[in-house]
């Protein structure tokens, strides 16, 4: 009897451990909401890419984009560029929130934002600008 209980106990422990490992292997990102935000950002990237290259817009540490060099944008286009940046940051905020919610951990939003902030910078093209740990703009 003692052995039976012990075995059941061990089996339960193994099952719980495996289930937990599987749950941590991947984050859920295949939801209609996340796909829609991703599509919208992908379209906008065609307009943002030249601004990254020129250095007018840079990547911030907190997973956003920001106007780095206002002088690099002609006055006539400045409002349009600001609109682009605002729309991009809104999509990014929704993206981070949606991923956290899709994984049933809304409190992870900040951690997800930080992870993205680092990965956007790591994967940026050479020549693009990003903010370093002290907040200064650095050319990659």
């Amino acid at each position: 009897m003692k052995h039976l209980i012990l075995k059941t106990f061990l089996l339960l422990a193994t099952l719980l451990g495996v289930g937990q490992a599987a749950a941590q292997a991947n984050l859920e990102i295949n939801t209609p909401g996340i796909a829609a935000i991703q599509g919208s950002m992908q379209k906008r990237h065609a307009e943002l890419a030249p601004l990254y290259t020129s250095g007018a817009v840079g990547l911030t540490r907190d997973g956003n984009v920001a106007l780095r060099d206002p002088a690099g944008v002609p006055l006539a286009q400045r409002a349009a560029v600001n609109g682009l940046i605002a729309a991009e940051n809104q999509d990014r905020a929704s993206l981070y929130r949606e991923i956290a919610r899709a994984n049933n951990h809304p409190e992870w939003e900040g951690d997800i934002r930080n992870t993205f902030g680092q990965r956007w910078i790591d994967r940026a093209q050479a020549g693009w600008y990003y903010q370093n740990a002290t907040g200064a703009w650095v050319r990659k």
Partner: protein
Amino acid sequence: MTLKTLRTLSTNRRLMLGALLGGTVMAAGCVTINIYFPAAAAEKAADRIIDEVWQLKGGASTPPAPAPGASTPPAPAPGAKPAEK
């Protein structure tokens, strides 16, 4: 539950009660562990989304730089009507 009632229980029952308590404690422990942020999984997820948004993994199917000036033969003239589908 007092010690007196615990003593009146048979050995089997006591063992079962112990296993039940142990299981509860362990399940609670697992829930606590699961609350920690899965940093590696988040990085993987971020990379997959960044690939899509920045079109980093198109390979040969997507041109590396779609230059508006360099036109291919079937490209329509700027004033041409869009093809009806």
